[in-house]
């Protein structure tokens, strides 16, 4: 458990006195047996106490533990929903600021782009309608309801994407993919279900060898898979028919932020005129606009622990890179199949 950073912050959120927190915290931990979010814990605990920072983080981690297949952003949103339910504030402004703090907290735990973008979109979604009701508790109910809707939509997004994308995989195709992406896995599953035969090349994706994990999962689906070195992408490109990668975040220009190595693959694909497809859920759309690799904020590039502990960031290896929109052919999202320039239009619709 990380030290209660911003303990003062959690104090601010609670209306009940401090000492009572510890016992409730204990009760909460018990409650996190199931995959259900703190929502159920809230009922059990009588909905009395607001969540502190630690509770939030614990809830988030529990989500990830219980359902390893869930996207980290979805887990974060579930945790946030629980947080919302248990919040004890009396004003909308207060609620908003506490939610923002909660999102901040979560992104410090898991420094992926998706968590922060998902959180922000969640916030926008629930606050869009809340302004008509003057009664705060009614407002809050509505917000919780909308939060549930958002969560449902978000959990279904992977299936929507799979349905959109698998027709692009023809029979006999050779696909190149990068690192471990659950959305890509789902798409390939859907392709298998529609009786297509294809083979997959996966990059090993150092430093965490995520590619091996992907290969294992693919073998379970009976898909012929070959693991290649990251450096062998240029070599293999002439053999593949299309490249399919996931994304951790989709930026305003239509480019993507993904595991390090994606940019290289995109450049090779462009040079050899192979289509480069990206699959990403819509909650990964983020309001960033990097101009080049250097412009991506450090908090996304390095893991949270590294950021906290390292002396000199230039000696650390970044975990993600930015692929510019000119290298991407199409993006498959639950909002539809988009070209990179359409991403900005969608973002304007989502955010404005």
């Amino acid at each position: 458990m990380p030290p209660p950073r911003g303990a003062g912050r959690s104090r601010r959120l609670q209306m009940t006195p401090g000492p009572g927190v510890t016992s409730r915290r204990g009760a909460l931990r018990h409650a996190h047996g199931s995959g259900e979010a703190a929502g159920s814990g809230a009922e059990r605990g009588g909905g009395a106490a607001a969540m502190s920072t630690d509770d939030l983080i614990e809830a988030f981690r529990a989500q990830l533990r219980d359902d390893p297949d869930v996207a980290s952003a979805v887990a974060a949103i579930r945790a946030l929903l629980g947080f919302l339910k248990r919040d004890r504030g009396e004003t909308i402004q207060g609620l908003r600021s506490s939610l923002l703090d909660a999102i901040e907290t979560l992104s410090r735990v898991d420094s992926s782009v998706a968590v922060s973008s998902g959180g922000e979109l969640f916030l926008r979604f629930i606050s869009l309608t809340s302004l008509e009701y003057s009664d705060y508790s009614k407002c809050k109910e509505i917000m919780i309801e909308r939060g549930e809707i958002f969560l449902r939509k978000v959990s279904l997004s992977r299936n929507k994407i799979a349905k959109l994308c698998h027709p692009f995989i023809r029979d006999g195709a050779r696909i190149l993919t990068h690192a471990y992406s659950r959305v890509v896995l789902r798409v390939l599953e859907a392709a298998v279900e529609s009786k297509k035969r294809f083979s997959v090349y996966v990059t090993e994706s150092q430093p965490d060898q995520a590619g091996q994990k992907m290969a294992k999962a693919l073998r379970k689906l009976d898909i012929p898979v070959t693991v290649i070195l990251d450096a062998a992408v240029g070599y293999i490109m002439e053999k593949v028919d299309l490249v399919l990668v996931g994304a951790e975040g989709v930026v305003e220009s239509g480019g993507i932020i993904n595991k390090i190595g994606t940019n290289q693959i995109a450049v090779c694909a462009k040079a050899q005129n192979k289509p480069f497809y990206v699959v990403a859920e819509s909650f990964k759309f983020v309001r960033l606009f990097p101009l080049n690799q250097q412009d991506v904020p450090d908090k996304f590039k390095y893991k949270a622990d590294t950021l906290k502990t390292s002396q000199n960031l230039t000696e650390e290896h970044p975990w993600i890179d930015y692929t510019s929109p000119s290298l991407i052919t199409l993006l498959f999202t639950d909002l539809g199949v988009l070209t990179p320039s359409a991403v900005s239009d969608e973002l304007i619709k989502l955010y404005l």
Partner: protein
Amino acid sequence: MARPRTARRGRPAPPRPAPLQRPRARGRGHPAGPARPSHGGCRAPAATRRCPGCPGDHPPRGSRRRPPCPAPPAPPPSGRPRGPGPGAPAGGGGARPRARAPRGVTARHAAGRDVTAGQGRGAAAAPSGRQGALRAGAMAERAAPGGAGSEAAAPVPAAAQVPELSREEKLQLRKEKKQQKKKKRSEKGPAAEPPEQGAAPEPGQPRVTPHPSSSPTLADGPSDGEKPTGGKSKAELRAERRAKQEAERAQKQAKKAELGQAATPAKPRLTPTEPPTVVKRLPEHVQVDDPAALRKLAKKLERQQVPLRQDYGTKVNLFSHLHQYSRKKPLTQQMSIPSTVIHPAVVRLGLQYSQGIINGSNARCIALLEVFKQLIRDYSTPPNEELSRDLVAKLKPHISFLNQCRPLSVSMGNAIKFLKKEISCLPDTLREEEAKEKLQSTIDNYLREKIVLAAEAISKSAFEKINDHDVILVYGCSSLVNRTLCDAHMQKGRAFRVIVVDSRPRLEGRETLRRLVRKGIHCTYVMINAISYVLPEVSKVLLGAHALLANGSVMSRVGTSQIALVSKAYNVPVLVCCETYKFCERVQTDSFVSNELDDPDDLIVLRKGQAQLGGWSENKSLRLLNLVYDVTPPDLVDLVITDLGMIPCTSVPVVLRVKNVDQQ
């Protein structure tokens, strides 16, 4: 890119619309419309269909024969009935044969002009067609600014006119025509137009060449084919024309019945009777080589009592459709402007624009709105008039005047549109004082929101993009970019340096340099030919914009697209800062169509006591080109920073759409 002007002459006639269906375009093409007397009343049989100078044979047009008049009447009023060049491409066929200029204009327009339906022009043509014919000789000579050859070296003898018809007479005629037109329009369909045009163009035909060979550059001017008569006297011409008019009118009445034919799609022009779909007209300031447009403009200016500014110097062929004025001949020299017509503050503003004292799109727009505020303050509604309608009408001559001093910028155009809308939406219940107050405060709001606050927002967004140890390249003098850099410098913790790129003849970079150095920013100054030398060390390029077009292209000071191109080659990100009020609905794919030509004498350089290029006007084969704007394609720009946030260039249409929705 050389335009084969000569090709025009021998060019095969563009596909002509079906004969009896040609809508009445102003003098466009050969008269496909109902038969009408042409060429001063001569009714040569169909056999002699061939028009002089017309490269191709005319398809038979029913009873309409347009006999080529060997000796057409003296140069008729310029251009009214002449086919508006721009419309021609849409109409495809039939630029009038005699209208070399329009023909050529057609080609050029077809080649790459704005997406403008010819309709606008055609429609515009129709009403004025008859006027043109009526005014024939009287206005013709007078109102032929630049007439056929806009490259006329000698300023066309337009402005200082010796009216042949007295003013009242002209007004009378005009009213008459308007009434007739209204009557006609209320009953007829589009096909009614052709008849008018048929006749009107006739007189216009020879009239195109008012300055036949006066200018050496008239190689491409209106063809020699229609070399006019020259022989007849004005009175004779007038008489002829009147006769023609009568005949025309008679025919038209007769024709009404038969004119069931739809307007030819070849010239897809909307006539006034059709439901008001959006008709895009080419602004007159890009049709300088079209005598018809010029005549129309001259008439309009005369009506508004605004002096017409003469073009100066020979123009480069490619840009002959634009005005080129000389700074040494400001508008006020030609005639004194009565203060009852144009408010003196506006006169001063116009002079400030034309002499280059007020420069830059934001500055010009702010100055314009301030002066309009004063105008509104000094305005008083005449009896029996409504403020909401009368004020807009009163503004028109002022706007024309300012346009004559210097073509309006996009920012000014948008501000004027906004103001006109505000004025016409004023509720009738307001008293005059209240209405004026309201307008003043609306203008103040507009200024504050769209310009001042937007600049702040942009400066804040741009600050996020400026990192420590950045080397930023800027070009020319943009108020927004300067403000962004100064603000960023004031915030602690951002150490960056700036490279200022400058270019002749305006040398605006010096002003930028002055402002930045005064704030203590570390600057380097280079001329634009040195950019490939400095770019390897640049981390980003920050540019301002005059306007953002609907397809994402950036219209900015000339030289900007060059910088964007070279930056792309060096992989340096290009950022453009632009407020949303400068977004415009136009689409441009090149820099030729709509641009501005500055005084060519600015390019004359004094070196060692000798003026290089000093005698350029005497040299027949030398033309000087001083362009003001150029267009950068959207794929060279990485990011646009607006007050709505940071968007890629391709999202400009979305913002426009959102804006339109807001305004409705």
